[in-house]
């Protein structure tokens, strides 16, 4: 296992994706090539009036340039400060942290279930799968949001050659409704396929995805979010209840958990 470490790095790029979504690139980051899909970095905002670090899933890495990308949505004080970061600003990254996704087997159809700002770790997962030689046609990328503005990085997703199925609650892009309703329809239409599900998104979507996995006996993994004081497993602040009883640390035992493993 790669040992995590604190490292100062710089903002290379801060791209406004609209509607409060931002894509931030940091570098040079010596651990960029060590980051695996599902892992996160814990970011300290130097000089800002926020106390804890903030945890963000790695959305992509450029191993040639030693850069990593995260995507965020402004939801509170920390993300507001981050949205205001500019090229050249110093940040401190603690990482890579957490348990990564297990990659799917060759004969499996991969169902990506992304919801809103849950997309970053799944983007990285799909990039990695394709770089590893996975056929993009075997990847079905469901991506739900309230509205079209919540479906970010659309052209990048399409460019990867995956089957891209956006779903919005207001019908402004793709199908109208909840993303998990369309995942279920897809499963029912293709009962003979071997599937593996990867999900990340808001609590309701995670629960519905977990339930689908259990109902149809489909293996898969979910990436969870929780406010994390330490990110390394010592403070016990970010716990989630396990179906088998007790609690697990989202930062250290997760953030990726198997379907059926946690109480959602």
């Amino acid at each position, binding site marked *: 296992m790669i*040992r*995590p*470490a*604190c490292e100062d790095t710089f903002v290379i790029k801060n791209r406004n994706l609209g509607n409060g979504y931002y894509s931030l690139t940091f570098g040079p980051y010596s651990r960029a090539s060590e980051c695996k899909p599902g892992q996160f970095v814990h970011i*300290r905002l130097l000089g800002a009036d*926020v*106390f*804890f*670090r903030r945890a963000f899933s790695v959305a992509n890495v450029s191993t040639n340039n030693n850069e990593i990308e995260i995507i965020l949505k402004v939801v509170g004080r920390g993300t507001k400060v981050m949205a205001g970061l500019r090229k050249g600003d110093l940040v401190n990254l*603690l990482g890579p942290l957490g348990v990564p996704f297990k990659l799917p087997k060759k004969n499996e159809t991969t169902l990506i279930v992304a919801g809103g700002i849950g997309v970053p770790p799944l983007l990285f997962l799909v990039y990695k799968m394709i770089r590893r030689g996975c056929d993009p046609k075997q990847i079905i990328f469901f991506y739900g949001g309230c509205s079209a503005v919540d479906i970010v990085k659309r052209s990048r997703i399409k460019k990867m050659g995956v089957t891209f199925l956006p779903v919005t609650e207001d019908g402004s892009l793709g199908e109208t409704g909840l993303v998990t309703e369309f995942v279920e329809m897809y499963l029912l239409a293709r009962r003979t396929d071997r599937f593996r599900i990867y999900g990340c998104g808001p609590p309701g979507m995670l629960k519905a995805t977990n339930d689908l996995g259990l109902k149809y006996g489909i293996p898969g993994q979910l990436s969870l979010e*929780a*406010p994390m*004081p*330490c*990110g*390394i*497993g*010592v*403070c*016990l*602040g*970010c*716990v*989630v*209840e396990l179906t088998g*009883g*007790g*609690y697990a640390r989202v930062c*250290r035992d997760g953030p990726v958990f198997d379907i059926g493993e946690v109480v959602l």
Partner: protein
Amino acid sequence: MTPDLKVSIAGVKFANPIMTASGCCGYGEELAQLFPLSKLGALVTKSITLKPRPGHRPPRTAETTGGMLNAIGLANVGVDCFLSDKVPFLSKQKTKVIVNVAGSTLQEYVDICARLNDCERVDMIELNLSCPNVDEGGMVLGVDPALTEKTITAVKKVFSKPVIAKLSPNVTSIVEIAKAAERGGADALSLINSVVGTAVDPETWRPRLTYNKGGLTGPAIKPIALAMVDAVYSNCRLPVIGIGGISSYRDVIEFLLCGATAVQVGTALFIEPDIPVKIIRDLTGYLKKRKLKSVCDLVGKVRKY
């Protein structure tokens, strides 16, 4: 000449005065990935209870101005699992190990300490007489001088190595409690534990912790801790270990000047997990610059008006 960072408390010799505070470093495994634990004066474990405890429902922590609230609820593996699963790792670490002990009754403190007495790796114990986040034990004992004295006396009968009493700031007079701990036979005092506090979400009208209140830690409590360390040092003979919002070598110096022989770094580990290494480096630099031979030359030397 390299300044001497070594300190001694109740006959136990520490490489330096920097310890990690209980509840902020687990049982050492995670921090060991970030820096060699041999750098530390001591590691103070998460509170150990007689039986394992899952802790409270999340959310258990909340960010506040200059600090944080927590109500973890003494989540820990229990003394048996600690001895079988955690001590083997700690045995390989070249640092002093202080085991923090929390009981819900006086008898539980005695039972846990009796078991720890047989464990060679345990250099000292620290009695958590001050956890604000459980309904029983802990702070109930720690806010009452007579019960504090009684608990320590009972523990001293079954535990042969030095005993530290960790004191709560949530009392009318911490000096009263410190004196009671001294009468009970404590070998050292550590202070302060967290300050009771809470936070509420104005949108949902819900407390930010499911326990409805918690313990405030971090830089926000440092002035409270310093004043209490000063008061206890001035009125008690026992060595004092200072705790409360320490995040830099300058914070350490303040605590030493107010009478602490050593300090514990807690919440700052959540933000900079390798902060003890930086603090030790910077403290050495400060001593050199001030031409001080030993870190002990700072203890209690605050120049009061």
